[in-house]
């Protein structure tokens, strides 16, 4: 409901280079085949929405991109870095990929500003004053600068999620992953988070977003991917995807949620 309002559709700032390339990716949890032969290429600046029923592997898919989950077969290449067991590669990828979680996962014992400056100070080795300037810049950008000295527990869910977005942006990532960023929010807070994400999309950030906010998908996505039972069943640009789904499973899913 919230997200349909803003944004002209996809002012494409897409590059021609693939910033993420996944080919033949398979993953199992024990016997459960959670990702089946995934092939996905994402161009720099592209905005992708991943949707699908629960248990379809969509969260696992994006969590493989920053190695929160390990894939067992296939290749994942992020901005020219191959994701392997090599810890250096993993750290290099993580420094370029920001992630926003369903449950925010802010650090409750640190102030909002400290949440934002921790990684720039310790991972990017920035001096504290510079890190704080960066932190304030992004907190202002998600319109929460006046809460910088508070603790996460004192903020509303929507505010916490915006802090989480700012925290990820402080590492100046090239890619942002969103794992159901609005699912844990009260309905009246969904809009403020989606608005922040729309702003981000307008600036040309490469985004992969697992969400069921179809309004958001229509407004900003370059491509919508539908997953079911570990497979990419269908993908298309949003208008075609929503108006004219090809696969029966996609049709059933869209009938249920729209």
């Amino acid at each position, binding site marked *: 409901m919230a997200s349909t309002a803003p944004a002209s559709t996809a002012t494409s700032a897409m590059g021609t280079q693939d910033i993420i390339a996944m080919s033949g990716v398979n993953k199992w949890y024990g016997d459960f085949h959670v990702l089946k032969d995934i092939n996905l290429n994402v161009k720099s600046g592209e905005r992708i929405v991943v949707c699908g029923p629960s248990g379809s592997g969509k969260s696992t898919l994006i969590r493989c991109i920053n190695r929160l989950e390990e894939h067992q077969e296939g290749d994942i290449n992020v901005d020219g870095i191959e994701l392997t067991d090599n810890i250096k590669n993993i750290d290099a990828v993580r*420094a370029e990929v920001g992630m926003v979680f369903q449950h925010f996962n802010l*650090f409750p014992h640190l102030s909002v500003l400290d949440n934002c400056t921790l990684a720039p100070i310790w*991972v990017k080795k920035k001096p504290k004053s510079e890190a704080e300037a960066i932190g304030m810049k992004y907190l202002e950008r998600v319109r929460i600068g006046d809460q910088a000295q508070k603790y996460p*527990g004192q903020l509303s869910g929507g505010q916490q999620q915006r802090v989480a977005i700012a*925290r990820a942006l402080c*590492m100046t990532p090239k890619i942002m992953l969103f794992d159901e960023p609005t699912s844990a929010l009260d309905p009246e807070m969904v809009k403020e988070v989606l608005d922040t994400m729309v702003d981000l999309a307008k600036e040309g950030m490469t985004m992969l977003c697992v969400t069921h906010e179809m309004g958001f998908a229509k407004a900003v996505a370059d491509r919508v991917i539908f997953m079911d039972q570990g497979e990419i069943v269908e993908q298309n640009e949003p208008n075609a995807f929503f108006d004219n789904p090809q696969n029966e499973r996609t049709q059933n899913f869209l009938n249920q949620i729209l």
Partner: protein
Amino acid sequence: MADITNTGANFVPTEARPAPLAVRPGPLTWLKENLFNTWYNALITLIVIWALANWIPALFDWFVTSALWEAAPADACREVAGACWAFVYEKWRFILFGTYPFEQQWRPGAAVILFIGLVVVSCFKPMWNKSLLVIWPVGLVVCWILLSGGILGLDYVPNNLWGGLPITLMLAVIGCLLAFPVSIALALGRRSNMPIIKAFCVGYIELIRGVPLITVLFMASVMFPLFMPEGLTIDKLLRAQVAIIMFAAAYLAEVVRGGLQAIPKGQYEAADSMGLSYWQSMVFIILPQALKITIPPQVNTFIGMFKDTSLVLIVGIFDLMFTMRVAINDLEWRAYYIEGMVFVAILYFLFCYSMSKYSQWLEGELHRGHKRL
């Protein structure tokens, strides 16, 4: 995503009810509600009142009214029906400082005060910075010089003459202080993916927890020297101290591990996703939260260790409990062991209760401003 904006247009809120009067119940109402609300509660209340009415005056009489309060020879105690505090007057210096040379006992006294001062000073938030790293070594060295002497014109007093309160305090506080980092290392090790480290930590924790402290002390003081090369000896007090550290660390490690497991997976993932290394995420994210939520069981362990130090007597170290027992071995005063026990119990209680109170304050202090979600 359905359109819900117009539903409920006819909703009219009801008038708010007036706020309830803030009535504080009178004492009679309170009694009726809390102590006499059912027949069996009333019965229990009456029994308890009867029991207290019998015991409290008797105890008070023994402790205070009929007690002998001034210094007096042991014979005078036989005249009184109550406690003979003359015993404490007579023996307190021996109980507190053991066999330390009598005319030098200001030295352990000063060391104890300095030591307690160190602990108290470290408890307050404005002090939680690098200055502690200077204060503690300096303070401990001064304590050591005071006790041991041999320089600055102080007579040398070998540590087999030390005893009483300084020993108890030193073994307990230094034990807990050094056991703490060891326990964190053990807890992290036990959760490690590296098989050898993990096996070592599990083995250590289970082995040490599986045997009584007496066994560990005995191993350290009797068995350990047998394995040492000829001529090389390690001080007995130091060996007991190390045994206590090892023992406390095993218990604390499990407490810390409990805290680590209570931290939601999302915290680890958030730290990972920002590229923090293992040690960075432990030091900045996980441990501060884990240690905070485990304050109650940590203090439990500390209090337990404080009292367990009394076991060092089996390896011939004279702690507070032991000096008291030696004091009541004096034939003349033998009948007054209860007074001695009460005196030492009060000392133990003061230290343990302070720890408990401090931990409650600390929890509140660390919680201020942010609740866990």
